[in-house]
């Protein structure tokens, strides 16, 4: 009882501590349609089923909250997914939850843990739970190596094996090595190696890997090319002659039979391209195409599968609580003039005061263009301008604080000014 009370008090104090820092919440809805010949290539599915080629749709909603202080970060994510197939396959539906804690040990090293769980069902159900401690090393601002290792528990219910409904529970101890580097600000190279700790470092027994190159354009458009290789090996015991013998062979098998162990290697080569383009601050359009080629040494047979899809993503970022009462001036260059728009929900009139008006108060008035939305236009020469936003209510003047999204500089007198660079 006493321990429980201590834990509750600790959680309350931690959450107060965290809320005293900064937090951000993001909601995102992803709507996609596509066609695939193997559900292994489908978003959120990841199960090998090439019984039917099918068109599919994906509707997924995401909510994510992040709290961060100077050295610690906690991130919670929830995802709901509905994936209907326009063929005989049942709709794949379910959800996923992720939690991540990260502590910054130094400029270049951080560590933490990622935990997650998911549940999906269609004709069968699948649930997973995993926990992976992580270590991240960034030797330069452009290079990062991330290492993770932990356990993943899977449980399948009503899963059909040889036409028999089966329940399966298993556990895998997994590792992940992820590398990311930016040769410049427009190119991102990333790679990953994932596998089973039991086989490490003898990775050829089973691994999944990829190398990807992304070209990022201004305004956020992106094209990504990816190649991947997965390989899984297993041993099969094959008995020939003697009229049978069953599996596994007992006591060396009946006389006249030959038992041999065959090592089978399955490989999956993957090749993909995807692109995304922001339509607005909230909307992004995306397309992707991916193919795989499966080969097994057992029969030396090749299988090719394909997935193409495209859709729209809506992202909403509600104003975080700690930012209320603060302003984020949004400047846009409009030919000869600079237009600034400010969202402000307080009372009174607001003004700009800064280098552009010799810091004269009350300053340049902002026009109220709609509810809580203010605007002004200034003709400015190229240069850098420090400024503040002043509010006057009932004759009382006060400076409005800037949000953490605003670029501010120290004013030399113990305060902060926003900085505007005009080119």
């Amino acid at each position, binding site marked *: 009882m006493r321990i429980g009370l201590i834990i509750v008090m600790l959680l309350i104090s931690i959450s107060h501590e965290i809320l005293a820092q900064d937090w951000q919440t*993001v909601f995102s809805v992803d709507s996609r349609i596509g066609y695939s010949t193997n559900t292994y290539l489908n978003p959120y599915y990841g199960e090998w089923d090439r019984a039917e080629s099918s068109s599919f749709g994906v509707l997924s909603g995401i909510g994510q909250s992040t709290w961060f202080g100077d050295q610690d970060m906690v991130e919670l994510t929830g995802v709901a997914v509905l994936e209907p197939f326009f063929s005989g396959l049942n709709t794949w539906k379910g959800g996923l939850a992720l939690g991540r804690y990260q502590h910054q040990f130094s400029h270049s090293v951080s560590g933490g843990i990622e935990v997650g769980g998911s549940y999906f069902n269609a004709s069968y159900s699948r649930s997973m739970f995993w926990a992976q401690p992580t270590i991240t090393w960034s030797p330069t601002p452009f290079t990062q190596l991330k290492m993770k290792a932990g356990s993943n528990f899977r449980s399948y219910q009503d899963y059909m094996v040889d036409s028999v409904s089966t329940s399966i529970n298993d556990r895998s101890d997994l590792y992940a090595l992820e590398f990311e580097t930016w040769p410049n600000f427009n190119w991102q190279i990333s790679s990953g190696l994932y596998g089973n700790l039991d086989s490490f470092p003898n990775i050829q027994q089973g691994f999944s890997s990829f190398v990807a190159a992304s070209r990022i354009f201004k305004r956020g458009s992106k094209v990504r090319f990816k190649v991947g290789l997965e390989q899984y090996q297993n041993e099969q015991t094959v008995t020939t002659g003697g009229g049978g013998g069953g599996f596994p062979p007992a006591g060396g098998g009946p006389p006249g039979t030959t038992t041999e162990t065959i090592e089978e290697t399955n490989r999956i080569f993957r090749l993909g391209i995807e692109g995304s383009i922001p339509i607005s601050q909230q909307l992004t359009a995306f397309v992707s195409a991916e193919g795989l080629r499966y080969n097994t040494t057992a029969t030396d047979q090749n299988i090719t599968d394909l997935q193409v899809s495209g859709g729209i993503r809506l992202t909403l970022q509600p104003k975080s609580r700690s930012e209320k009462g603060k302003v984020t001036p949004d400047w846009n260059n409009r030919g000869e003039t600079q237009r600034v728009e400010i969202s402000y929900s307080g009372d009174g009139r607001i003004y700009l005061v800064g280098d552009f008006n010799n810091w004269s108060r009350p300053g340049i008035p902002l026009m109220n263009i709609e509810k809580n939305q203010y605007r002004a236009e200034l003709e400015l020469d190229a240069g850098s301008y420090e400024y503040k936003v002043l509010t006057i209510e009932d004759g009382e003047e006060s400076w409005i604080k800037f949000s953490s999204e605003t670029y501010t500089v120290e004013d030399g007198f113990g305060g902060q000014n926003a900085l505007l660079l005009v080119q």
Partner: protein
Amino acid sequence: MVFVCAYLGIPDTALAQTEALDKLVERANKTGIEQSVIEDLKARKEARGLSNEQFANMIEPAVQLAENDLPANHVLQKALEGLSKGVPDARIVPYINRMANATRQAAGVVDPWMAKPEVKRVLGEQKNSMPGQSMRNRLIESSSRAITQNIPPENINQLLTDIGNKSVLSKTNGANIISAMDIVSDLPMREQPELTRSFIVRALKGGFESGEFQKLPMALNMAQKRSQIPASNIMRGVGNQLNKGVPARDILKNLFDGKIGGGPPGDIPRGMEDNPGKGNRGNNAGNG
């Protein structure tokens, strides 16, 4: 004049201060300092009830800078700002002197750099290039901002040397270089000068403009808090997606792309039992 003052009861010292201030204002006018700035300063001096001596202390450093052909407007603006914010003159004057010293130090770095033949040539060849004197003054102003924030002039010098490389100059222009210098004081230039230099050089090579540079310090700060590579944060910022952090779509990229199918990658996909081979075996329990 002395007799007139004595007759009117004005002390000699006050008279001397008035004369000295008049001379100072005259010197300011000769150097080309904007009249409106001086007038605004005078008006604020009256409103604050400052003495002529206090006022002279405030503008003298800027006048000296201008007389030495150095930019002075940023120093005067700081005086105006301090008066507008109600900062005591005892705090304004030392900061202004510090800015003036930093401006001289910045000029000692910028002038030799701009005199380099390769810098002159490449910047001079560019279309819409800024006039040399204007660029020099703005570069001194932005460099002095960094020096005022305790960035050693040697670090600024090294950064300019890196930027002076033809491979960088050919992909940017004077205005972008000034924008880069404007944000230097908000990057970890003191603690990690080499990394910061590489950061800025890559940004210039990548064609970053003022809007992008403005987002660099915050992106770097956020990236460190979230254990991310700053470059990825910055590019989100460039795409107007930087809002204190990372959009969910990037965090969940693996999920959206179907790479992990609802769990971490590395496990063996179930369902391969019907393949020509017998498929895969899971770790501890097998797959089929």
